[in-house]
């Protein structure tokens, strides 16, 4: 493959690669670094690319390895991440001042509930073991086939299926117990609470019924609701959406809070 052709191909999926790494690291800066290192590594090893997979699969394998190396020494987040981060945010006036400033001045400062659902998915999926998280993302958000994921994570198809199944089961279970959008007894209402802060004149109920997952909460089973949730995640680019700056600010806050929390634990 020529350098020009590779660069063109890379640019075509760069956005997806970037959001994939962001969903693993929860850090914009580290995402930029890993994506750049991936390009450099792939570019300099272009001669070793034999076309046994697509360039996209090959590049995602390189990026996944770099992300794994980066995350190796970091502890996984906890299932109640959103509770911990909410508590920290409530004690941090600066966080809300910054967020409100973004909300009022940035063209990417809107608050949308579906954006927050996607953000929440990123935070909660960081509580899965790393191999499970990346397998789930690769399959359900970036639509790689099991065979390609096996290439990307350098494991067998059987193990990819195992990671995928356990990841899905755990995520289903966590949301079933926590998310008030799909379960009236759910303990987390953050998306509607934040909507009340950032969109005080908006009727949250009217917004919620526009979301298929919420509309179907009582008629679909919990696995189908997870699929609908992942459909929301799939449809959003966390760097390009109208809510990007506000959500990335929030993600940066959560990452710092969780790193401090896990260090002290």
């Amino acid at each position, binding site marked *: 493959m020529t350098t020009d052709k590779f660069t063109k191909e890379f640019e075509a999926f760069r956005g997806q690669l970037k959001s994939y790494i962001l969903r693993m690291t929860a850090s914009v800066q580290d995402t930029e670094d890993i994506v750049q290192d991936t390009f450099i590594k792939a570019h300099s090893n272009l001669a070793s690319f034999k076309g046994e997979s697509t360039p996209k699969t090959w590049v995602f394998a390189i990026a996944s390895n770099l992300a794994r190396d980066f995350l190796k020494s970091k502890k996984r987040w906890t299932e109640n991440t959103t509770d911990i981060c909410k508590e920290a945010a409530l004690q941090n006036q600066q966080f809300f001042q910054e967020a409100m400033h973004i909300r009022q001045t940035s063209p990417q400062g809107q608050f949308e509930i579906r954006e927050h659902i996607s953000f929440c998915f990123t935070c909660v999926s960081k509580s899965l073991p790393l191999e499970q998280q990346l397998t789930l993302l690769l399959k359900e958000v970036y639509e790689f086939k099991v065979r390609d994921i096996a290439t990307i994570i350098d494991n*067998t198809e*059987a193990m990819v*299926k195992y990671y995928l199944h356990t990841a899905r*089961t*755990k995520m289903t279970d966590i949301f079933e117990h926590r998310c008030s959008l799909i379960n009236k007894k759910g303990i987390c209402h953050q998306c509607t609470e934040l909507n009340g802060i950032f969109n005080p004149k908006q009727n949250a109920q009217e917004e919620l019924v526009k979301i298929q997952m919420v509309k179907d909460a009582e008629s679909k089973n919990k696995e189908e609701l997870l699929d609908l949730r992942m459909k929301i995640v799939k449809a959003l680019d966390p760097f390009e959406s109208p809510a990007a700056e506000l959500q990335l600010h929030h993600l940066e806050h959560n990452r710092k809070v969780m790193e401090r929390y896990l260090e002290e634990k």
Partner: protein
Amino acid sequence: MKVSSLILLLMTSAVSMAQNATTVKKTFSRETTVSIDIKADASIVWALLTNASDFPRWNSTIISLEGEIKKGEKIRLKSTLDEKRIFKLKVKEMDTEKRMVWGDGKGMRVYTITENGNGIAFNMTEKIGGLMFPMYAKYIPPFDASFNQFATDLKKEAEIISNTK
């Protein structure tokens, strides 16, 4: 009963018998074994058997399993066999995707996985015993039902995973 129905009944019994746990009782020991064929890759079965915290999710005989299932490590098992007790076991042997042994001073549980061309054959054996065994034997509940359930749960979960698209 028609002859064909009788043959069918016998065949069905033979299939379920293959999954039925058996116990051999002796004066100083008791050994329970269960076997089952599973249409799944050995790596899937191995992954299910070696991820401690994941056990209660798919295995209805396990209430909790704490610790890391690695050779030399100690694990703490709470089972439906006796919900009030926590069994402190040591992982004594690990031969990846083939054999694993857990045990304590009173007994030993051996798991084996054998490729059979259409998946794997799973076998689980627990032998408890010793010189003092006759004194406490009556306090140990029978394992057969629990072993059957363990094997059935393992087969179900491994085959669901194996059929993931």
